[in-house]
């Protein structure tokens, strides 16, 4: 922790303890709400900051009828003036901040999904946009995430919502201020305003996506091998089962169809690896400030298993996720409370259940007893509903674990 971090935390404690107890005092001056009253000037600064990262939204008709895109160079500081970059110009050496993942735990052929932490522009910009769409109570707020293939897979995050006051047709090249190749923000959408945040896509490729109707929430076919993965920037609903093992080892599994791959959300802050496993694509992130914490996201059809592991190796956490994810609907029913349907379903993903999952389901259906797999000293047992309690059992080194489950107790 830096001195600045300590100072901020000290100030926060002091301020919150000084202010919050008095927020409802009857004799308080009703002049204004803090943060709003002040804050024409502050809001101007905030908006200016938002503008500096070019979070712009487009009115639909204008883009649809007049596809004019404007390079934004005036909003960035002079030293960060955007530089047109082609695909060939993209830098490739971007691994400087990924050393927190122990190389010994990483398979040699692992693709690096996000080469480094995302640039400040992405985080602040996307969060600011989300905050403002939240503030406007935009009913149609949504996010969709698409990833490509290859050693440096392109990533496209689409954030939908209305922002009628924003300029039309802007694209900002963030490359000059970004450690993420070809990072740009733009907004497009024939039937609704949308923010496109891209890594690894060239400007021309991004512009081509302006014709795609992301806001319709229907499956879309994208060029460049981009396929959609479940994603929700701000998950509301989680279903959790926790296994507590010895020596502070624990595994928490969150299951749902509405909250996407949480590891990807963390990836806004921390590096993420993507691993192609026999059971599908698995995303791994390690907390840069806490190496004992590993998070794994495993997409199974339109469900997502997020594994939070404490004091497990990355490989162990991945193996647990891989074991748990492709399981039967009966076991899902045992993990996910049946009366808790997701409040906001993900947009249709298209496609069918991958064959490898169908095979796994068939094998499990033919099995009388529990299906177990072994990963180091961790045993994962999947039990069919009705045979036991329909849940997943984890054993750490043969030591019984305590389990907290919303449905099984």
């Amino acid at each position, binding site marked *: 922790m830096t001195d600045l971090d300590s100072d901020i935390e000290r100030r*926060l404690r002091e301020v*919150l303890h*000084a202010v919050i107890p008095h*927020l*409802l005092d009857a004799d308080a001056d009703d002049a204004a709400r803090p943060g709003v009253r002040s804050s024409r000037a502050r809001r101007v600064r905030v908006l200016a900051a938002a503008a500096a990262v070019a979070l712009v939204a487009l009115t639909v008709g204008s883009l649809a009828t007049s596809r004019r895109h404007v390079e934004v160079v005036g909003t960035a500081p002079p030293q960060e003036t955007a530089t047109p970059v082609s695909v060939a110009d993209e830098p490739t050496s971007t691994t400087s901040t990924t050393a927190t993942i122990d190389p010994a735990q990483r398979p040699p052929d692992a693709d690096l999904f996000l080469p480094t932490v995302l640039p400040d522009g992405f985080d602040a910009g996307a969060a600011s946009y989300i*905050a403002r769409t939240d503030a406007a109570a935009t009913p149609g707020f949504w996010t969709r995430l698409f990833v490509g293939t290859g050693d440096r897979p392109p990533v496209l995050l689409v954030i939908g919502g209305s922002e009628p006051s924003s300029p039309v047709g802007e694209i900002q090249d963030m490359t000059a201020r970004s450690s993420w190749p070809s990072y740009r923000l733009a907004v497009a959408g024939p039937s609704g305003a949308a923010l496109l945040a891209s890594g690894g896509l060239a400007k021309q490729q991004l512009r081509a996506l302006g014709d795609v109707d992301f806001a319709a929430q229907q499956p879309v076919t994208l060029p460049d091998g981009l396929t959609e993965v479940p994603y929700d920037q701000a998950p509301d609903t989680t279903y959790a089962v926790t296994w507590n093992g010895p020596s502070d080892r624990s595994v928490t599994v969150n299951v749902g169809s509405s909250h996407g791959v949480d590891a990807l959300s963390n990836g806004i802050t921390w590096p993420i690896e993507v691993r192609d496993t026999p059971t599908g694509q698995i995303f791994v992130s390690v*907390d840069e400030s806490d190496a004992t914490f590993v998070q794994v996201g495993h997409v199974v059809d339109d469900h997502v298993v997020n594994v939070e592991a404490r004091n497990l190796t990355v490989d162990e956490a991945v193996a647990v996720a891989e074991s748990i994810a492709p399981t039967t609907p009966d076991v899902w029913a045992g993990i996910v409370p049946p009366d808790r349907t997701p409040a906001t379903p993900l947009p249709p993903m298209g496609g069918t259940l991958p064959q490898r999952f169908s095979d796994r389901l068939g094998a499990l259906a033919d099995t009388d007893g529990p299906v177990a797999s072994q990963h180091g000293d961790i045993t994962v047992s999947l039990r069919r509903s009705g045979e036991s309690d329909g849940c997943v059992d984890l054993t750490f080194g043969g030591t019984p674990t305590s389990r907290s489950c919303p449905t099984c107790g």
Partner: protein
Amino acid sequence: MPGVVGEPLLPALRHATATGDPGAADLALIDALYRAHRDELAALAAAITLDRELAMEVVHDVFVGLQRHVGNVANPAGYLHRSVVQRSISVLRRRRTSSRHPLPRPAVVLTPEIDETWQAVTALPVRERAVVVLRFWRDLSEADIADTLGWPVGTVKSTLHRALRRLKEQLR
């Protein structure tokens, strides 16, 4: 019934009592909880919603909710805090933040540093503000915040990280 639970009793709770008729012991417990925790819960809701009346609505709604389930709630105080935070976030996401009943200026002498920092806190997105309030006012651990919000721990970590980074930029 009022003789059992005493006054003041929430108007909404009184209405619920008239229709739901929970046991007298439950009502006495709820009333005691209300007396013990109302101010703190209201302040917590106000810190998140930045709306005085909305904060009170949140607290009252949560107590009415507790009235329906009090027999099944193992830790009523924990339930109340968790519900207030979650409901504060939820209602704010559904409403325009143009506050109908804006918060009063805190009845405390604010130094420029405190004022500036509080302004920065109020400018945070609601989820980040909730995490900051829970971490630095309620002094909850990240795991406890995750439990309170019903989020994965990783989401709490990343949300807090983003909030602190945003505050550092604002207050630099």
